[in-house]
């Protein structure tokens, strides 16, 4: 019994990805059905804007079902769990979002680059600090002076732009 239970669990794990794709496709079909209809005189002999996404998602469901069959016949290689560096980098993206929205984009980049250097294994604080300051400031100056890109207002840009 435990062996068959293990086999079922393995099968369920393999089928998780096709199941997620099918679930996503169903949600898109549902969202498509909620889209407004265009008047007949505009659409004419063509199709309503909702039709194309629905056709795509039906195709996706068929493909996901094929993938599920493939996975039951030849299970994919098990995926290794990500380490601290990967998860930490994703968390730093969230930190970047919060700092950009509430403080300043350039400061956010500097903080995240500094933290990312440390997270990825840099043990020399001055080196991490130098990368964190030089990289965003040189890119900022290049984009600001040469490409004339205005960056969003924040703590640093308010001071810089005046």
């Amino acid at each position, binding site marked *: 019994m435990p062996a068959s239970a293990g086999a079922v669990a393995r099968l369920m794990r393999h089928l998780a990805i096709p199941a997620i794709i099918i679930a996503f496709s169903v949600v898109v079909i549902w969202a498509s059905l909620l889209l*407004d209809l*265009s008047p007949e005189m505009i659409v004419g002999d063509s199709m309503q*804007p909702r039709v194309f*996404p629905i056709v795509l998602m039906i195709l*996706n469901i068929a493909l996901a079902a094929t993938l599920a069959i493939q996975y039951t016949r030849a299970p994919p290689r098990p995926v290794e769990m*990500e380490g601290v560096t990967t998860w930490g980098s994703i968390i730093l993206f969230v930190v970047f979002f919060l700092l950009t929205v509430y403080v300043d984009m350039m400061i956010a980049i500097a903080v995240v680059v500094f933290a990312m250097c440390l997270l990825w294994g840099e043990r020399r604080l001055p*080196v991490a600090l130098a990368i964190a300051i030089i990289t965003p400031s040189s*890119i900022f100056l290049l984009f600001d002076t*040469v490409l004339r890109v205005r960056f969003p207002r924040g703590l640093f840009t308010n001071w810089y732009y005046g």
Partner: protein
Amino acid sequence: MLEALQAMGSVLFDPYLLLLIFATTVIGVIIGVLPGLGATTGAALLLPFTLTMEPVHAIAVLSTIYVSATFAGSITAILINTPGTSAAAATTFDGYPLAQRGEAGRALGIAVVSSTVGGVFSVIVLCIAAPLLARVAYEFRPPEYFALALFGLSMLASISAGGAVRNLIGGVFGVWLATIGAEKTTGIERFMFGNYELYEGLSFVPVFIGLFAISELLVQSKFVHRAVAAVLLKAVQLPSMADYKRIWKTVLRSCGIGTFIGVLPAEGATVASMIGYAEARRWSKNKDEFGKGSVEGIAGAEAANNSATGGAMVPTMVLGIPGSGTTAVILVGLLVHGLRPGPYLFTEQVTQVYQIFGAMLLANLMFMAMGLYAAKIFARISLVPSKMLWPIVFALAVIGAYALSASLLDVWIALVFGVIGFLARRFGFAVAPIAVGLILGEMVETNLQNSLKMFEGDWWLIFTQPLAALFLFFAFLGLFGSAIFGWLRKRFWSST
């Protein structure tokens, strides 16, 4: 013809363009030697820097990155057994063993010469084939474009990364992404969820930066502590006469293979190098040497991957169908700079088109010089630790995503697609099909709608158009060809 040659030659008299090509070749080679940073990621990261440039200069920068990074992947493939780009994976099979035998300079010399011959050959083919294909494409109407786009999507089934079904799922997802925003003919809003910044649809640049650069950052975070051992390199040697005698047939064969595979929509340098290598082995008299340092193996892979670059530009420029992930980025570059890819590009902007081709030709010659004289320096750059490189890539990626429209939404889109791309790759899905699907999505839907209007709703009349029917037949072959031929071989081969 004369006008084309004049336009190509004019590149030599534009000092700013020459300087740009030189600088971009250096950047391209650096991008190519840094493991993980390939031509596609490099082009996606550099695209925002081209915003204020002239269209020709901008596209020359992107195509130079393409050819030089594709070549440079071989430097690290030979010296540290780590292909700088996926297109150089086949070069490791024989390049590294030859380097281990103390012949790293010879291996690099063969790679440089084969790559240059491949690159120059493919640009010549591009100059000849693109206008001819453009003449045929003048006749295309919506049914033909619809069928052609479907053919392009069907080719996703056969690209190297991922499996056929997974690539097609990625492609369909990409096409769906193209439906986000206001529908073109009716103005009905689709999947915008009240966000009017999405009215024009998803911007290609942030999506590409996310899919290629940020997802790669997350992939590389798994290999932070990977140690690499560099092979000692004294100097790059040009191949000897004996080497030339051994490799010339292989190089020519791989040039043909690479250019042909490059022309096929959605195929690219990686597939070309693998097939180039396999064919080199199949035709070789010294099969036993393969895997142990065969010069034919290096030449076969390198000539094929660089000749795919020019080939991949043919459908990109003539039909607006990207020939690879990097040409998808170049296609976006063309659109951003107001150059609408398609047959009319060859009548309305012929000078600019040939200047771009001229720049590509020049880039091939420049990377040859750099490969021969500076490979040792570039090889050292590949040893830059990940802990310094990837935080810098992050900064470049987010500012690049922001720069195109000065929109923070684009930055969030890049980050979200970075995570989506990472998760996709984690579970065996390639990201290039999503990018190709996103580009072809509008082409598929708009031309299907126009075909329906043309035929007053009778969709099946698309099949009555000879060229459209031919493309749909090719699409069918792309999807089911291998299964059908496999079944036929099994049935009739086993019975005989």
